[in-house]
């Protein structure tokens, strides 16, 4: 994408010979594109902080995250770049704009930052920058992929690693047939977390029924006779759990 738009601006109408004489060949295109994306990302990130309007902030944030995705693509990390587009740029910001729409008439549309907030944010930002710069300068040699190089690795090792099999990096000193454990456990933990969040969101967003706590207790105890079978016990516990959790918002009201 970026080489295309960039090169559209080039004077292609000029004779070829004239083009050859230009010092364009001396430019490291990879660095140039990197700088282009980096400048867009940084400038938009600053604009997010400085803008007053919430929707404009969201817009700048999309541009900043999109430029970051561009950096990933430039580095050959296509899966990561597409992930960035999908999750950050796509999902988060659509939801953010959604939230903004719901508060479109409220005083939060234009946000005025106080001086204290600015100082605080500046301090936090500076601390983060210091940490990042320190770790960036600790890397001894940055590698540059060649322009137009075909990236050899695919997303297959990633998928297999998530399934618990690492085929990409054999452990040092291990026998060659040994299989390193992948990311199956973290993956499962994260997915269970997400499931919990999903259930919680569905619970919070559902239509509230007005029932007295007394009635629920009676219903729960009468509908679940004490049973020794495991399935009945599980069902009763689930029902009790749901009814007791339903008490919380109702009780506050």
């Amino acid at each position, binding site marked *: 994408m970026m080489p295309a738009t960039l090169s559209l601006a080039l004077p292609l109408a000029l004779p070829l010979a004239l083009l050859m004489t230009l010092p364009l060949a001396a430019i490291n295109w990879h660095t140039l594109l990197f700088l282009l994306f980096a400048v867009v990302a940084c400038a938009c990130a600053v604009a997010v902080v400085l803008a007053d309007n919430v929707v404009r902030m969201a817009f700048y944030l999309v541009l900043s995250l999109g430029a970051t995705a561009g950096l990933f693509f430039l580095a050959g990390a296509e899966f990561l770049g597409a992930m960035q587009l999908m999750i950050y740029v796509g999902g988060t910001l*659509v939801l953010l704009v959604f939230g903004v*729409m719901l508060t479109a008439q409220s005083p939060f549309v234009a946000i005025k930052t106080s001086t204290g907030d600015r100082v605080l944010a500046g301090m936090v930002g500076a601390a983060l920058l210091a940490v990042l710069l320190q770790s960036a300068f600790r890397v001894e040699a940055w590698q540059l992929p060649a322009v137009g190089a075909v990236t*050899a690795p695919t997303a297959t090792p990633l998928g297999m690693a998530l399934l618990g099999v690492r085929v990409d990096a054999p452990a040092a000193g291990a026998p060659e047939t040994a299989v390193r454990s992948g990311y199956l456990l973290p993956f499962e933990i994260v997915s269970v977390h997400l499931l919990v969040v999903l259930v919680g969101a569905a619970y919070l967003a559902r239509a509230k029924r007005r029932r007295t706590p007394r009635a629920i207790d009676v219903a729960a105890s009468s509908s679940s006779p004490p049973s020794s079978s495991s399935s009945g016990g599980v069902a009763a516990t689930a029902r009790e759990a749901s009814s007791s959790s339903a008490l919380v918002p109702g009780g506050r009201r």
Partner: protein
Amino acid sequence: MADFLINTVGLPEWLAWTTTAVVAAVLILNVIAGGALVFIWAERKIAARIQDRLGPTRTGGRFGWLQSLADGIKLLAKEDLMPEGADGMLFRLAPYISFCASFCAFIALPFAFDFVGQRLNVGVFFVVAVLGLEVFGVILAGYASASKWSLFGAMREAAQVVSYEVPLGMCVVVPVMLAGSMDLVTIAEKQAGWVSSWYLFHDPFTFVIFWVYVTCAVASVNRAPFDLAEAESELVAGFHTEYSGLRWSFFFMAEYGSMFLVSALAALLFLGGWNGPIPVAHLLGLSDGTGDTAGYFVRLLGCGNLIVKASLGVLIMMWIRWSLPRLRIDQVMATCLKYCTPIAAAMFAGAMFWQLALPGGLVRGLSRPAGEVREGWLEGPGGLSVRPTKAVSTPAVPVALVDDPRSQTEAKSIVQVSP
């Protein structure tokens, strides 16, 4: 192409790469813009025929085939209006954001084996991700217009697109699972051969999930019966109420570009891509090895094949649009959450078990042992066994996942271990 320019023509490397990039970009731009011209004309003719009218008849002689161009000139000459109280910057930028999202998705879309702007090994994922960004331009347009109609349209659009991303993603995953790759080129290559090797006819589950995909695709590009964002009987014109002239036409180009895109994606994922129903080129004995004229002819044929399939998809969308009434917002949500998502999930599970029991499809799966098919995933460049002609031309050493020769044996052993 860049290699050709460097080696044969003798251009310096940077110029060759930029020339290649310009050619690709201009070609994609022409596909979107030219396609929009043709499809708008086709839509008017189809709408007219369905409603028992004639449609445009005079412009350009017969059939009114120049009507879109005349409309385009009219749009160019229109005044560019902006409502008072609008957020000027966002209002001006929104159409271009929609258009850019549509354009970017085309970059990773292959038209034939080598005819692809940038071959990504996560092509499907990229296209779906970028397609979801188009909604952002619509939301910005709705917000920045400072109009209630626009805001309503944009909010409906946001709700709809976010919901339909879920079943759409599930539908897309099934061909990815069957092919063992997210590379669109590889997925289409895996369906080479007769019509029976298309993933549409791979097993009953893929057949069902294709129709779920069609539903979700129509919804995700905002076409009737899912065009709540611009419901003209309720919201004037929805999110583009306040737009006129060229900016309005950018929204239209983005819409028609996305229609073509999801149709081409359907063709690539389910309908064999550039492989025709009858492998004509293969029967004639033409190989598509790179470089020679015959191969170029084969790829040109495949490109035409894909474009015909995608255009058919767009025509079907028009047919649907002029046949079905618009759904209400609750019906749209019910279609997504109560029908599309569960069906897609069930079909995904079904296709998964089918792949475990009978990999390689109904016909071939019965005759090929399962282990052979699965081992094929790990061979060849890009982690997959590509076509046989390629295997002959490349050295006989299969390239495993990593260049490291140690891991090759390891990868093999894993495949044999896995059930």
